[in-house]
């Protein structure tokens, strides 16, 4: 096996424009560099600051390539501790480039790694470097607002880098997958991007650790990352199943360890027709699988045969996704299961109606179900056409007109 090249290095942008997101910072950085090219820098150094993995180091690398500069790179704290490095950096910074020779870009990473409290000397070294440098100096920091860094800040063009959006991150990840020839479902990229919380470096590292050397990645692979379904949202799961490219791919959702499959069944029941309309074949096939899953679920629970669960899970994923004549992919808005909404919204009304029905049932020696089915239709007719007769009936049953009419609506 050849040595693993970190993808973070392998896919570092070659041009400033390729650095993901942070358009405002990129513009400011280019303006500052151009002021060096014109020979009159507003500030000799730029301090790029912001959370990790937002492109601070990458933009320096890209600038070196794009402006044809030799990159002289060091970690700020090393400059202070290693005399050899210090000498090298100082020489690189102070030497005037000779005609025909390339210019240089000095990069000092993690400037806030120098503890201004413990070691003022370290900061003095950096300030001295900026003062003597004949080349652009780029500093990076996560948090530049320590009061002791104030004098340093005054020497620098301050450029802020912000956390990357999920979309910027997934775009980069998708690009890498394409170049590596890896098939990776959107849900995986989406999960990695969300988990990274704006840190592209972390996202790329995550992707590399689950995807390197594979031709296909599934949600299963996310387990390596300690993938816990933090109650993965149902919209995503339903979409994953209903728009799976292959039925087996739909099975990917099963890797959510806390998947609420009974809830999922309700969600599929609600949303199958939205995704599969107008194909009646696809709708019928998908419902067929779903209804058989429901049958298995019932048997499993009644007989306590938990081993049947696997068939339930297969049917609601592979089974549903195997529907024939599925329409081409379209983005549809899914809806929360109306059944659950209606049941919750009408709970008190239904309970009140049940009490009235019980009262009638007791007086007529029938079950509430029979009252509803066999007596209520007649009572409705009487109620509409003969208020006087109805009044007498209700009075004899000891039921108020109001509560009776509640069961009719």
């Amino acid at each position, binding site marked *: 096996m050849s040595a693993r090249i970190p993808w973070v290095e392998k896919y570092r942008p070659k041009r400033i424009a390729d650095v993901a997101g942070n358009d405002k910072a990129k513009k400011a950085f280019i303006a500052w560099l151009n002021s060096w090219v014109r020979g009159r820098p507003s500030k000799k150094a730029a301090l790029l600051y912001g959370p990790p993995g937002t492109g601070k180091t990458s933009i320096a690398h890209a600038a070196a390539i794009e402006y044809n500069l030799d990159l002289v790179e060091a970690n700020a704290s090393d400059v202070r501790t290693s005399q050899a490095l210090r000498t090298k950096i100082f020489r690189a910074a102070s030497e005037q480039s000779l005609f025909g020779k390339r210019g240089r870009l000095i990069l000092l990473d993690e400037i806030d790694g120098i503890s201004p409290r413990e070691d003022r000397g370290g900061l003095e070294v950096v300030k001295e470097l900026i003062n003597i440098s004949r080349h652009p100096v780029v500093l990076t920091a996560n948090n530049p607002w320590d009061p002791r860094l104030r004098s340093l800040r005054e020497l620098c063009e301050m450029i802020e880098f912000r956390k990357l959006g999920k979309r910027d991150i997934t775009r980069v990840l998708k690009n890498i997958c394409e170049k590596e020839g890896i098939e990776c479902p959107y849900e995986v990229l989406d999960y990695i991007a969300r988990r990274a919380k704006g840190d592209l470096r972390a996202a790329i590292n995550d992707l590399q650790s689950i995807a390197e050397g594979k031709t296909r990645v599934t949600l299963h692979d996310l387990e390596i990352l300690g993938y816990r379904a933090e109650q993965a949202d149902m919209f995503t799961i339903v979409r994953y199943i209903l728009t799976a490219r292959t039925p087996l791919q739909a099975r990917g959702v099963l890797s959510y360890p806390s998947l609420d499959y009974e809830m999922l069944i309700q969600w599929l029941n609600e949303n199958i*027709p939205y995704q599969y309309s107008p194909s009646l074949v696809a709708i019928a096939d998908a419902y067929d699988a779903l209804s058989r899953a429901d049958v298995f679920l019932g048997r499993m629970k009644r007989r306590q045969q938990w081993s049947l669960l696997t068939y339930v899970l297969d049917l609601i994923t592979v089974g549903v996704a195997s529907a024939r004549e599925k329409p081409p992919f379209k983005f549809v808005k899914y809806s929360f299961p109306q059944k659950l909404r209606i049941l919750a919204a009408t709970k008190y009304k239904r309970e009140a109606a049940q009490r009235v029905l019980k009262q009638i049932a007791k007086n007529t020696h029938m079950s509430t179900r029979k009252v509803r089915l*066999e007596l209520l239709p007649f009572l409705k007719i009487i109620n509409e056409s003969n208020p006087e007769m109805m009044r007498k009936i209700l009075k004899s049953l000891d039921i108020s007109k109001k509560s009776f009419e509640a069961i009719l609506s």
Partner: protein
Amino acid sequence: MLMGIELWTEKYRPRTLDEIVNQEEIVSRLKEFVKEKNVPHLLFVGPPGTGKTTAALCLAHDLYGEHWRDNTLELNASDERGIDVIRTRIKDYARTIPLGEVPFKLIILDEADNMTSDAQQALRRTMELFSRSTRFILIANYASKIIEPIQSRCAVFRFQPLPKEAAKDRLRYIAQNEGVKVTEEALEAIWVESEGDLRKAINILQAAAALRKEVTEEVVYEVLGKISPKEVREIIKLAIAGKFLEARDRLRSYMYSYGLSGVDVLKMMHKELLSSKLDLNIDEYTRAELLDLIGEINFRLVEGSDDEIQLNALLAKFALIGSKSRRTA
């Protein structure tokens, strides 16, 4: 009754065994039990509206006289939540000794055939446990749905629908008492449409009397038109026309606003499919296919599956079959 219930089915329900007409054989045997002050466990079976519950209540009345309510526990298997609840209620009830000179109390368990066979097994043990202090009257539509061990412990009484003339006599008597005019054709129509169910017949009569002072054949059909489930017919039509989403939404609002179970809806669908009023423009083979599907879904529901999911699957199949049938037509 302590208070007169103004529903004619209750108002004209016989109070004593003597008031029951046209079930002579059953009545005379029940009277024997009263005379002996000894009753075996009883199983009353027969179609709806043939007097099973009435006979049980009259027997209780004749056995205990004015104290009959204190000595009778009425339970309906469809309304009690499971066999455990039924057992507890029976246990609590059987603990106290009966009032009066009859040495046991009565437990009337209606719609017993709605119990699963497991629940019936548990019921059998309960019957044995309390047989010294209680007697059971089980009521069911079908004897075949009651497990053998229970049947063999009971004296089985089979109830038949009232003969046509007896039923019409009863309706005529009620109408006369209520000061309502009924034509002979109206009575004939009620008899045909109620299919031997006297409760339904009386309900039709009362609703018709609520509509018009004089009950004619037309009024009877007006009532029948109002109670027929048009909604279900519409739902089937929408599904067959391939409008699945509309059919699904209509079904949902119908079920929830009327509090119907999936089985209720299936039974209505089954009836509709066999009704001549439903014009679906499908061939006979397709109709048979639809009926077969209803049977399958009904089985799944009684097995305990989810009403909405199963009915949606059914409507989706209807929609598919409907579209195929149109294509070949």
